[in-house]
């Protein structure tokens, strides 16, 4: 138990963010991620093979590159496939929580009142699957910003409305 000086509240009574029930992002996002990694794997491996065919790379170069690429893609695929169930967002009265990652698991909390503006965007591939990315910008550098990819239309709208509602309340 942390023993704070001049204690006015009990630490164990504080709301605990780790107990928040998270919502998963849309399953369609997993499809998008799969398409993307298959696409890049195809491009890079075939590129390497074509290069090898024309230039005839020495084995000293070819096999290490091949090995490096294989391991890299293996890790990326594992991270995506095993990490997808952990990709969750939580909405609380005063903050937004997002967590993701398999090899490196990161949980971020952004209080609504520190959000400067919200952006909902949709890339080309996302459009085909009808999913969106919601970005919540905070002040300062971009590393503290929250970006939730793979929300369906309903969730994205709800999240955005919730953030804007709380921000409005704070103004008044």
């Amino acid at each position: 138990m942390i023993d704070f000086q001049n204690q006015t509240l009990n630490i164990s009574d504080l709301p605990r963010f780790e107990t928040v029930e998270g919502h998963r992002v849309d399953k369609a996002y997993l499809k998008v991620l799969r398409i993307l990694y298959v696409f890049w794997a195809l491009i890079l491996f075939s590129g390497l093979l074509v290069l090898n065919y024309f230039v005839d790379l020495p084995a000293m170069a070819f096999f290490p590159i091949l090995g490096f690429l294989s391991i890299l893609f293996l890790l990326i695929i594992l991270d995506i496939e095993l990490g997808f169930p952990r990709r969750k967002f939580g909405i609380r009265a005063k903050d937004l929580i997002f967590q993701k990652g398999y090899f490196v698991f990161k949980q971020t909390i952004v209080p609504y009142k520190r959000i400067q503006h919200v952006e909902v965007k949709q890339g080309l591939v996302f459009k085909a699957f009808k999913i969106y990315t919601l970005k919540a910008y905070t002040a300062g550098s971009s590393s503290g910003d929250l970006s939730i990819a793979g929300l369906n239309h309903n969730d994205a709208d709800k999240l955005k409305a919730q953030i804007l509602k709380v921000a409005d309340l704070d103004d008044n």
Partner: protein
Amino acid sequence: MTTDFSTTQRQNFKGILVIFLMDLVKRIKQNIFAFLPLLSSNIRQNYWEYIVTGFVLLIVLQLLYSYKSYLNFKFHIQDGRFFLRQGVFKFTDVDIAFDRIQNININQNLIQQMLNVVGFEIETAGQGKAEITIKALSREDAIDLKRILLENKTEKFAENNNSEVTAEVSTKPKLLFHLNLKRLLKVGISSNYLKGLGLVFAFFATLFQYIEDIFSNFFEVDFGETYVNQIPETLGYIAGFVVFIIAAAFIVTVATSVIKYFELKVTKVDNEFEVDYGLFKRINQVIKKSKTQVFEVEQNPIKDLFGIKNIFISQASSEELSNKKKIGIVGVSNDEINTMFQSLFDVPYDQEFVIRQSSFRLMFRLMTRYSILGLGIGIGIYFWQNLVISLVVFTVLISVFSIISYKTVKKSHIGVNENLIKIHSGSIHTNMKYIATHKIQSLALKRNWYQQRNQHADLLIYTASGDERINYLKYEEALKIIDFLNYKVESSQLSWI
């Protein structure tokens, strides 16, 4: 003679030269690689007419461009707003309300010093890049303009709540701290030599051929052949070289700090601090209470001996904050830290914190990284020299790295109390960062695959002036800290700016 800023103004007439020279320097810096062919005497001999004509043409074009950009640069003040129109081929109109202005900096670089004009910078709040730079104003005009911009702001503010502000305005600027040359030298001597060493190495790496010539004439040692036969001389050569490098690094380090922080002055105006420093480039910066995000105190064993410390203050910024943008107040004593701290945070510097230490497992992470680095250097030296030297270097490196990692782990902790966070870090030096809890933007916990199994986590704290990270806290404790800090942010009525 005062300038009327309500009519359209251009910059000081000398501005043409300032703009021209500054643009020229910028162009040369950008295109430095274009000069590379000139290193070949062949090209120099065969094409020198073209080269000279080309240069003259480019310089004339640049002069025309600079002249046009001087002509088109117009600003004026109207109805509590600052208007600026600038551009050469396309125009940009900027319009800033006085109360949006956060900071005004008056700088003077070498070119401006020679022509006796100053640069004028208007900074606005965190978002966007609406910052304005006027490259040449006479000093009187600059001070006038600054007074007008800031005065109107306080007046406007005073209308809203009269009683509070009038008391503030009446305070006279008060010199809080002046760094004399003796203390400045102490600062230089106690600086981190690695930077100076880096500069020296970069310099000598380019000139190595010449140096080798000079030294081998001097010691009459021929590198290649007599390497084995004349071991004493070779050792003498190496020792001489090492001493020379260390001396050079020392001088370079001291000189850079003296040039950078020459005549450092901190004045207190109302509730703000104004900081002036620099030998060639005089810089004037304002520290605002509301904009201050991180208060950093740095000390190291030599500084402790001299009884001095360095403070670095980071203010809210829309860009990624580099070390350069931190405002450094070097060579201060404990009393001066207390005064600054008290007026920026409203609480005394001496604070009780609940401390949570990084786990000793952090040592493994650091040593893994250092071992890879050490192995890389060792293997490099093995191919360059031989196994014995490589092993010796590797052993020395690893022992130095072990000490550094041990110290890093020992010094890594976070302290939390009702108002503040204290982040303690460093290895040989010690670094303490203070952040008011309500200035936090967002929080995160990061656990890699290994940490997920051994119940540890890295805590990340994002502020408007960059990220802070505390490695390897116990997961349970990290959770408590993050819940507590989050509660503090969300329950606080204070704004981050």
